[in-house]
């Protein structure tokens, strides 16, 4: 089920919302949200629910075991065990075929099979949820909950289950504890406004950019203008798609009395790659920083070690997006840029800010070419076309118009969470008009979110 579908907007959301506010006790709201999460998730394939349940029960149990373990050593083993099982499941479903394919390519005599397994939607996201919980309990940053339903609610929140943001238990623990409270003043209006804003970003801008990018990339040969149009178009599409989804998650969270952390902060206005990663998919970049980079030693071991940690973190971050060498290279590319940014930080910071922002943006766009490409030859063809101005191609006014809309939005409009959406009654018709406008574009179309594939 996706947010921009009839079944979600016309049936699932109204029913779950009404039922949620109709029941009063904390436990019944936990049960309701958990059940809603499983229905939402099982809409793709009910069998995926079993895996989700297993992963949830494992981390819940591990949290309790860590808390009650008689010695730190035993706590450590519980933590390592739970994380290993979680990562093994992720590896099996997401990376095994990639791994075996590469091994067979290198050593054809090694008899590794190709598994006929479907990739469970959102496995990368909920695995990171459960890992963060177990590690946080072990590190003493959070107390393990003894309420299974509260924990299941946390993992299975339908609005962040399949594409994030990657919420940590401690970030919403307080709201979960007070879930039995009445609707908060202003949260309803703000939740609706942010949800509608996200929906509009997705269905109006991202999907239109998609209709420009996808046909271009199906062409066997790209001209210079086509290559840049596709690169810039995808840059916009990915941002509006994913930040739109994140806005919707934020808005839905507010409707259910839960504050989901922000995930974007105008990333294309970043000055420097470090700054970009402070603004893009914030919940992932901070997760990687806290649970991987710092665990590897962070910047505590000298320049060379720090650079190695940074590179490894970014390569693994790239691989998290998908089992493909394009993601690995994209991660490595960003690792390299981060290292260069750190080394040349003082040099770049002397540049005029707009120039530094432009340089960052172009580097990010080049990265997205790797990210979007199905394979390395495609990335190579696309990138080489971007640097061959002699094969200019023809100007496409429609594409240019949509790119201009996207650019104006990126430059002028703040993130939805930054906007102080009016919460007075007179604004209700405005938000209703926004929802209707979004529905005009949703109606009769099928469009999934780009980040669902990760």
């Amino acid at each position, binding site marked *: 089920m996706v947010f921009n579908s009839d079944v979600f907007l016309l049936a699932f959301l109204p029913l779950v919302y009404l039922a949620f506010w109709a029941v009063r006790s904390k436990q019944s709201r936990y049960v309701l949200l958990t059940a809603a999460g499983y229905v939402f998730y099982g809409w793709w394939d009910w069998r995926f629910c079993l895996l989700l349940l297993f992963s949830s029960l494992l981390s819940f149990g591990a949290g309790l075991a860590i808390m009650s373990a008689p010695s730190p050593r035993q706590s450590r083993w519980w933590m390592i065990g739970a994380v290993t099982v979680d990562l093994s499941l992720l590896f099996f479903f997401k990376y095994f075929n990639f791994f075996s394919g590469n091994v067979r390519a290198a050593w054809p005599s090694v008899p590794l099979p190709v598994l006929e397994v479907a990739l469970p939607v959102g496995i990368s996201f909920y695995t990171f949820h459960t890992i963060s919980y177990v590690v946080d309990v072990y590190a003493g940053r959070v107390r393990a909950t003894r309420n299974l339903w509260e924990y299941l609610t946390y993992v299975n929140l339908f609005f962040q289950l399949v594409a994030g943001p990657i919420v940590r238990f401690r970030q919403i623990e307080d709201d979960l504890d007070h879930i039995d409270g009445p*609707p908060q003043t202003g949260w309803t209006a703000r939740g609706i406004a942010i949800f509608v804003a996200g929906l509009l970003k997705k269905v109006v801008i991202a999907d239109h950019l998609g209709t420009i990018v996808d046909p271009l990339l199906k062409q066997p040969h790209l001209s210079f203008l086509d290559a840049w149009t596709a690169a810039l178009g995808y840059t916009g599409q990915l941002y509006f798609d994913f930040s739109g989804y994140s806005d919707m998650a934020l808005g839905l969270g507010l409707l259910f009395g839960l504050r989901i952390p922000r995930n974007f902060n105008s990333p294309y206005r970043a000055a420097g790659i470090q700054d970009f990663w402070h603004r893009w998919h914030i919940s992932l970049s901070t997760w990687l920083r806290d649970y991987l980079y710092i665990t590897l030693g962070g910047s505590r071991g000298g320049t060379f070690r720090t650079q190695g940690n940074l590179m490894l973190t970014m390569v693994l971050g790239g691989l998290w997006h998908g089992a493909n060498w394009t993601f690995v290279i994209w991660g490595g590319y960003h690792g390299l840029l981060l290292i260069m940014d750190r080394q040349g930080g003082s040099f770049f910071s002397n540049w005029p800010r707009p120039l530094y922002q432009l340089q960052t943006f172009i580097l990010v766009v080049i990265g997205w070419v790797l990210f979007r490409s199905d394979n390395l030859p495609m990335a190579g063809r696309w990138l080489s076309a971007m640097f061959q101005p002699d094969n200019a191609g023809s100007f496409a006014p429609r594409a240019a118009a949509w790119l201009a809309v996207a650019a104006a939005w990126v430059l002028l409009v703040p993130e939805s969470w930054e906007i102080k959406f009016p919460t007075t*009654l007179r604004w209700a018709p405005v938000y*209703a008009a926004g929802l209707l406008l979004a529905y005009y574009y949703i*109606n009769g179309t099928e469009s999934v979110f780009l980040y669902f594939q990760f």
Partner: protein
Amino acid sequence: MRASALCPRQFWWIFLLSLVLMVGAHCLLVTTVDPRRYFSSRNSFPQLHPNSRRVKVEALARFQQAGPVTGLILGSSRSMLLSPQEFDRRTGLRFFNAGVFSGTAEDFLSLYRLARRNGNHPRVIVLGLDPAAIYEGRPEEELSANFALTAALENRAVSGWGQAWHSLILYKQMLRPQALVEVATSIAMRRHPPEPRSTFDADGRLHERKTERAIQSGEYNFRAELELSRRRMIESLQNFQGLSQRRTQLIESLMAEAAADQARVVIWIPPVHPTLLETMARSPQATTADGLARQFTIGLAERYPVQVIDLTHPSAFGGDPDRWYDSIHISPLDADKIARRLAAYGI
């Protein structure tokens, strides 16, 4: 003035009420202006797209008032110029042309079933089986917007509830930017409505008035139309995936029902301009698509008591392709020749 109180329940009520009012206003506007004539054929606002399915359903109801329909012409725009009177003269039956623009298997079966539901018993069915009618694709919206046809296609009884549900789905379908753009265009054109492109006789025969006038005045650029239609045809076949299983099944149903009703079926394969035939021969996709459609059509004659007449090449009926509208749409003169040819085949 101080802002109103922030009660979530109140906010929801106003939000939902606004939504309902806006959707209601949209539906009212779409129904009143109705640029595609989905809701009614009587309307003072200009029609932007010809709705041949509504025209045919209403014309059939009127036509049969003077006597039952005993001969039915089915097909796409390539059949719509066939004169029912030509068939009447040669067969003594009472023919109605139920061909529709972009007609596909869904249309053929639904129109046949509708004619039967209306109490007619066609003894002869002349089906112009355009290969595109059985290629994979979505049914025309005009068809899904027409309650009588969808009910006939799905073999559902016509009930008030069914009609209400159908209208609800249709209104929901209309919640799109394109519908508003068309409403605005129709309103803007109200003072100077465009001349209708085509008209229909009482027996369903099409007259391409605008094109005919352009041809007579020498303004019609046949070569350009030929080239445009040729290119479009080849482009449309670029992503050919195979015949539609659903559509071929619908044709099989039509054949079976006609056989059960003891109606005689004559299938003819519509002609193609030699220029397009040459281009198609050079395109692997076009060759495959055409070959599969032809194989299916000819195969029907082995399974059902039907005759298949291949008129792909204009020489098969003495056609004059350089007087056509484009590479696939024949002239009225050639339509009459085809009618005579089909009738001479022994209908």
